[in-house]
């Protein structure tokens, strides 16, 4: 990190919901299960209209390796199929189930995991994807890390404001987290695990420290790494650097420095899955924001519509001006309440009028705030200019692809410039320019 320069930013925490245990939503009338809730291939529906399904039954799967199966999160009947326009703009097919309210489960049994191959197959069958938000299929991540890593880093940093879902996981599911760590460490032969958590979660830090001290042994050393609360502490590269001092080379995966990073909820899920064999059908979501009457953590069936979720939290009467899926720094805004919760949604924020007010955009005054904030040590102001000038060569020279789009620089910008958005456009511009170059070279 640069001399005299503090990287990253301080943001308000707004994490009042951390004191609230997740409330389980039981009576869900309908779920819409997207056939792609991960990075990778779209699944194909494996059920027919009118079929009766039980909780945990596979409703979508594919032969493509980079994907994860989708399971029914309620019992009931297949109402039909739909194409859902998700926030990225893609149209994703979905299976719509109407619930019978009975939550009748398949007879689950602990998965058979004796060899590494069986472990990967079981993780795949569980439907687990990165629950921190990235949604990378867990089996693919574990498979690619096998043999390459010597440390497991469990990400409980939760540096985004408002969200406390992982904080709750650390408090409520400590034993599951440890079981998950042991499971991963056993099959990937990892001798050391660190749970990284920001220092603004004092109760969880103490809880984890006590658990780790009791669970650590000669074969597997488990510790808690307390990190300063500084956004984006939980971003993979910053997280690895803060905990191990290792620097992931630009454009490389964490395994390049021998690290495997997994979200704390993912690890806890694996711990539970080993015991019960129950696939990924629900998750904890923080519902907060000025337009929510009672902010809370809720345990929801995957596929629940926002409309149904927020009426549960008493946001029905207050009209949200902005609906955000995910955190306020990196989450996506939805135009309406038709969006559905997928495996990697950790929060729903409903902003009121005042929170929605956009900062007017004015000319860059070259204050250098963005440069001081950028955790990747890029020059956001130059990237924005290069993007506006459609200068692919400069974008490449200034490593636009290294931008993790954390938004720190937009946050501090006094001129309210839409830096993230223009840098995204710059990335796309560079991708297209390189594509063209490749085609020209071929011809």
């Amino acid at each position, binding site marked *: 990190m*640069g*001399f*005299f*320069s503090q990287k990253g*930013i301080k*943001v308000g925490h707004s994490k009042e919901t951390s004191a609230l245990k997740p409330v389980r939503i039981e009576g869900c009338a309908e779920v819409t299960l997207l056939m792609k809730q991960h990075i990778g291939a779209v699944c194909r*529906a494996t059920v027919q209209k009118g079929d009766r399904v039980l909780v945990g039954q596979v409703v979508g799967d594919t032969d493509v390796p980079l994907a994860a199966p989708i399971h029914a999160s309620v019992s009931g009947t297949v109402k*039909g*199929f*739909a*194409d*859902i326009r998700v926030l990225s703009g893609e149209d994703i097919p979905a299976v*719509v189930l109407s619930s019978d309210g009975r939550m009748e489960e398949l007879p689950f049994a602990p998965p058979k995991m004796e060899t590494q191959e069986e472990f990967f197959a079981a993780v795949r069958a569980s439907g687990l994807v990165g629950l921190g938000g990235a949604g990378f299929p867990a089996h693919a991540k574990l498979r690619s890390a096998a043999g*390459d890593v*010597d440390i497991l880093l469990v990400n409980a940093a939760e540096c985004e404001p408002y969200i406390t879902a992982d904080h709750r996981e650390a408090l409520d599911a400590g034993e599951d987290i440890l079981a998950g760590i042991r499971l991963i460490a056993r099959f990937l032969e990892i*001798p050391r695990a660190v749970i990284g958590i920001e220092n603004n979660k004092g109760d969880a830090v103490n809880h984890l420290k006590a658990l780790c001290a009791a669970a650590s042994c000669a074969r597997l*050393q488990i510790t808690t790494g307390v990190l300063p609360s500084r956004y984006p502490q939980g971003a993979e590269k910053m997280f690895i*650097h803060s905990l191990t001092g290792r*620097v*992931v*080379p*630009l454009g*490389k995966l964490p395994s390049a420095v*021998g*690290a495997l990073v997994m979200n704390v909820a993912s690890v806890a899920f694996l711990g539970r899955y080993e015991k019960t064999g129950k696939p990924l059908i629900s998750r904890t979501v923080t519902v907060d924001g000025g337009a929510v009457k009672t902010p809370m953590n809720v345990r929801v069936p995957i596929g629940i519509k926002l409309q149904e979720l927020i009426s549960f939290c008493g946001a029905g009467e207050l009209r*949200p*001006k*902005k609906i955000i899926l995910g955190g*306020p*720094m*990196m*989450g996506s*805004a939805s*135009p*309406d309440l038709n969006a559905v919760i997928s495996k990697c949604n950790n929060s729903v*924020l409903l902003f009121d009028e005042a*929170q929605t007010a*956009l*900062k007017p955009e*004015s*000319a860059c*005054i*070259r*204050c*250098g705030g963005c*440069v*001081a904030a950028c955790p*990747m040590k*890029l*020059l956001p102001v130059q990237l924005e200019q290069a993007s506006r000038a459609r200068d692919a060569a400069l974008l490449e020279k200034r490593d636009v692809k*290294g931008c993790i*789009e954390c*938004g720190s620089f*937009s*946050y*501090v*910008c*006094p*001129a309210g410039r839409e830096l*993230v958005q223009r840098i995204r456009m710059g990335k796309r511009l560079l991708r297209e320019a390189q594509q063209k170059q490749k085609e020209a070279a071929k011809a």
Partner: protein
Amino acid sequence: MTNVRIQAPTGGEALAVVSATPHIRSSRSTRGIMLDVLLALLPALAASVWYFGSRALILALLSVVSCVAFEWVARRLMKRPQTVGDLSAAVTGLLLAFNLPATLPLWMAVLGAFVAIVVVKQLFGGIGQNFVNPAITARIVLTVSFATQMTAFHAPNRHSWGTDAVAQATPMKLLSAQAPGKFSAEGLPRLLDMFLGNRGGSLGEGCAAALLLGFAYLCARKVITPLIPLCFVGTVAAASFVAGGFSPLFLGYELLGGGLLLGACFMATDYATCPINWKGKVVFGIGCGLLTALIRLFGNMPEGVSFSILLMNLLVPHIEALTAPKPFGKEGKAHDKAKSRTR
């Protein structure tokens, strides 16, 4: 497979706001930053009015009003969004006044404001786009055009609200008139007077105490980092200490005399015309210091702060290109597993 396309709500139902990330922004604003700079300049303004009387206040007000007016007119004529509200023109106006002698004919100050706002700032695109410091450039244009009036410094006539000023050479003028290597404090104001601003010179450059107070405020409010001022003043100090035969007294006069503190704390730190990265700021500050010392010690002008800042302003794009930070993990090596394996 029957497809039911789920539609967005229709029938006049208002959709929620969709915008790019991040959805929360800091309360920092251009106007707030400029207001902080104005506040930081107030102690020095008060000192100048204390020492030079009403004339100083009139000049400062006129300069600010002219700058704001020129900005307003220029934006209107160019059919661009109005930007006088961001207060940057007011900052330029006050800084320009700080660079003028209290007795300067008023119309010259208005001309300076024109050069600063219209020629240097607006013709190049307005705030953030000028490549040299507007106030510094205006001062240089005025110095070159009206050498007599721009160097007609007067002794502070404290408590006098008239214009019956007595001409007095500035400490820098006296220093540069001395034979090289033979420093003598004779004829110079006391160092304490220099620190408090009780000496001849431009409006805002005299009172080191007030300038340092403003500088501390800007640092505390994180409007500027102290990098450039420290490197700038540090370099001048080192060069003067050596050139003055390690005389602390000479060093004191070099640091408190002329426009060094005003230039280093408020002019060289101008956002638009200094590098954005910390390495660039260090290079820029040292460069300003070296040039200032060279001009002071070897040039035929008594003072070199404004020229050194102007010259370094021109080099900023190159400094930035040469000192661009290396992205986190660029050219990084893969981790050596054999070494870190603990078993």
